[in-house]
């Protein structure tokens, strides 16, 4: 990385933040870094809206009676919570923010392969988001984020079409991002940056992009079919019109199970970057960690039927889906073991990103292993559609994905803005989120096995104690999420300025200025080393 020294010299040069001012310079930008920030702002907005719905849901569930909202309202709250969190936060989150910003930097490129498509993807995302927000203000939708037919296609009296249209539109932004990342990774790597030298974050986003491109069209088709049945009364899913409701579930989960891996894989990529940096080591078993991302992407397409063990699907199909679901857990387990093994004989420090990484390993392990409970057909009969499932996917999505997202945001923040946040407050927030999360969702495993069904506005009094615990946890969790929003914004103006590489991390993204120049690299670097080359740094330190 000989170019690094030259680039240090020109620190007076304008960076991507100062390269242009005014609304136009942002809304018409084709700079991948600025587009990442556009995504960051819109994603944070939708996360806050989804979070607010979660708070209202937990408040209602403090008591067994339906005393805060009417059933119609409660059903809309959990539906809109799911829609905003899944389609407008979790699916785009890491790829659209950290991926857009860092994938080109990590591979030594000046931008993504198709910068204008990249901007278009944000506009498409924003349009989908606005349509869904409009659906919310027009009165909301009450089908659950899963839109099961024939309820969604015939019976629901809420704004199904509008909300579905929002999701349909935003799906195209996923596809555009996926196409962009695949082309960028294939065509724009710096000289010498072979596939086996790629940072694992790039591998993870590459695998994610494959799923986005292959899976998203299926949900678009599915939504379109619901709309056709609802508007034109063509029998597709509703048996009263000659349709088949199980067909909807096959189509829906054919996308929506792989979508779970769209949500978690990029988080696993962030994990590898953080763990390597804060243990000062190359990731243990680099190759197998990289390949396990691809294995997850492929196997992830073959397990959708495990959502349908009690739907009336054939028992033999159930056997196949159950066995394949056991297999898809193996690459995830491999990753957990390798991150843990990376810590062995490391030189570990515990800055905020590493706290999130440690939290991720613990919570994702619980999330993953409770997935085995659900893949085991006989047990799934009992816990299917109960709070056990709710707890399981929140352990993966919030305990895994959101922890990784926050860890990544804290890790890359100084690079993105050239300033550091308040480390003490950041640690307090990380601990609050960890404790609040467990208090919110662990009781829900117990509620699930006790038999409390999900999406219940009114519930049996026997379930109240655990629900009160869960709501108490949610208030800690909510405060924990509010803190970073405050101190990160505060740091933009008042944070301590940092150098180009505050963590002394390996990787091309740390060789350029913080914040990066408009076109990232003056000279395209030549890569001569493996990823995570911490050996030399350690030798120099001791």
């Amino acid at each position, binding site marked *: 990385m000989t170019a690094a020294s030259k680039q240090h010299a020109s620190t007076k040069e304008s960076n991507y933040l100062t390269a242009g001012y005014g609304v136009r310079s942002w809304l018409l930008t084709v700079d991948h870094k600025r587009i990442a920030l556009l995504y960051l702002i819109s994603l944070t907005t939708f996360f806050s809206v989804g979070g607010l719905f979660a708070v209202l849901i937990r408040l209602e569930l403090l008591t067994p009676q339906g005393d805060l909202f009417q*059933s119609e309202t409660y059903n809309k709250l959990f539906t809109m919570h799911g829609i905003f969190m899944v389609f407008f936060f979790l699916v785009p989150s890491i790829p659209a923010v950290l991926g857009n910003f860092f994938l080109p930097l990590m591979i030594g490129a000046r931008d993504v392969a198709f910068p204008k498509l990249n901007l278009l993807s944000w506009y498409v995302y924003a349009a989908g988001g606005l349509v869904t927000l409009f659906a919310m203000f027009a009165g909301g939708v009450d089908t659950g984020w899963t839109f099961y037919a024939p309820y969604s296609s015939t019976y629901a009296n809420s704004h199904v079409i509008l909300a579905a249209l929002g999701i349909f539109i935003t799906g195209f932004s996923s596809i555009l991002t996926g196409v962009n990342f695949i082309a960028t990774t294939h065509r724009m790597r710096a000289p010498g940056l072979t596939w086996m030298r790629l940072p694992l974050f790039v591998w993870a986003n590459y695998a994610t992009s494959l799923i986005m491109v292959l899976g998203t069209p299926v949900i678009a088709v599915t939504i379109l079919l619901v709309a056709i049945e609802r508007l034109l009364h063509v029998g597709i899913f509703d048996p009263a019109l000659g349709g088949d409701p199980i067909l909807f579930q096959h189509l829906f989960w054919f996308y929506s199970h792989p979508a779970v891996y769209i949500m978690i894989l990029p988080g696993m990529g962030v994990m590898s970057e953080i763990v390597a940096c804060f243990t000062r080591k190359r990731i243990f078993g680099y190759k197998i960690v990289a390949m396990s991302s691809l294995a997850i992407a492929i196997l992830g397409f073959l397990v959708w039927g495990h959502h349908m063990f009690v739907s009336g699907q054939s028992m033999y199909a159930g056997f196949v889906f159950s*066995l394949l679901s056991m297999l898809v857990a*193996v690459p995830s387990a491999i990753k957990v*073991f390798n991150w843990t093994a990376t810590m062995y004989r490391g030189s570990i420090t515990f800055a905020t990103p590493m706290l999130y990484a440690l939290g991720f390993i613990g919570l994702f392990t619980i999330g993953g292993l409770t997935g085995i409970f659900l893949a085991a057909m006989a047990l799934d009969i009992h816990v299917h559609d109960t709070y056990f499932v709710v707890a399981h996917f929140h352990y993966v999505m919030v305990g895994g994905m959101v922890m990784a997202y926050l860890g990544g945001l804290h890790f890359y923040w100084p690079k993105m803005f050239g300033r550091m946040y308040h480390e003490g407050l950041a640690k307090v927030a990380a601990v609050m989120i960890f404790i609040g999360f467990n208090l919110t969702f662990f009781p829900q495993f117990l509620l699930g*096995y006790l038999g409390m069904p999900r999406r219940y506005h009114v519930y049996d009094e026997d379930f109240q104690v655990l629900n009160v615990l869960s709501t108490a946890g949610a208030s800690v969790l909510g405060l924990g999420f509010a803190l970073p929003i405050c101190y990160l914004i505060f740091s933009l103006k008042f944070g301590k300025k940092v150098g180009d590489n505050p963590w002394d991390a390996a990787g091309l993204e740390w060789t350029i200025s913080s914040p990066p120049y408009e076109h990232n690299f003056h000279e395209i670097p030549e890569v001569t080393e493996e990823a995570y080359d911490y050996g030399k740094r350690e030798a120099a330190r001791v």
Partner: protein
Amino acid sequence: MFEDFTLFPEAASTVAGGIDRLYFFLIGMTTFAVAGILSALILFSIRYRRRPDRAAQQIDGSVPLEIIWSAIPLALWVFIFGWSAKLYLEIHTTPSEGMTYFVTGKQWMWKIQHPTGQREINTMHVPRGEVVILKLVSEDVIHDFFVPAFRIKQDVLPGTQYTTIWFEATKVGTYDLFCAEYCGTKHSEMIGSVVVMDPADYQAWLDGQPAGQDPVDAGRVLFENLRCVTCHDAGSGQRGPDLSGRFGRPTSLSDGRTVLFDESYVRESILEPKRRLSAGYQPLMPTYTGQVTDTQINQLIAYVKSLANSDVAPKGGDADGGNGQ
């Protein structure tokens, strides 16, 4: 709030114990794995925290370790798959003999019909120690019949097909019945209870109910009144198949396939007769959609089922059982 607090649901069916054992095994596995990972994280965090005099040791990886920590979980999970699949097979395989109840779900209530014709809403009385087979169907959206104490759950679909689930209750008591598939506004109020009674008490309870019409008798009357008898009677000229001795046996279809002549097939043949036509017959039968209620379909099924063991064709004319009223 605390008086009913519990962490574990009551177990009141023959399959509950098997599912609980699998659950506890998986809790053991999870606890062991999480404890192992956490110990390693804590141990490494302390032992290998940064010191000024010690550099991190660069390790590329270890093929034997990768094999070990892939193979052990894989073997364990395939074992769990086998265990749960075997259990699932037991739960999924409906016993051939049992009391058949018809359960119809609709927004937002459960309608239950006893084998002897009595009807209930949202409450279901069953005898202890008897196999109870439920034929489930929905009038509108998808519902789900869930009794946590029995560890059973089955989606209830709209359309021509029944889904089936069975249980054998082991303990007298009253157990929650929940709809577990989101079905609209009052989903959380689509609840009820299953009341398990000693067989003698159950009989007494049945006797205390308004005398339900015997479903077989009612079905025989319907068979006559709806003019099913004109085609499906042995002496009718045979435009449709004679239905005696057919129920519960495989039957050949006109497209060469074979299906089981069961409740779902009878229901489908009444509602959509052309979908799966019996071999050797023309598609002459009209649909009865909209002309028969779910209760009447259940009665027709009961009657057709009663012909299962008779080789004698049903006679037309007045049903000699009469109706129970």
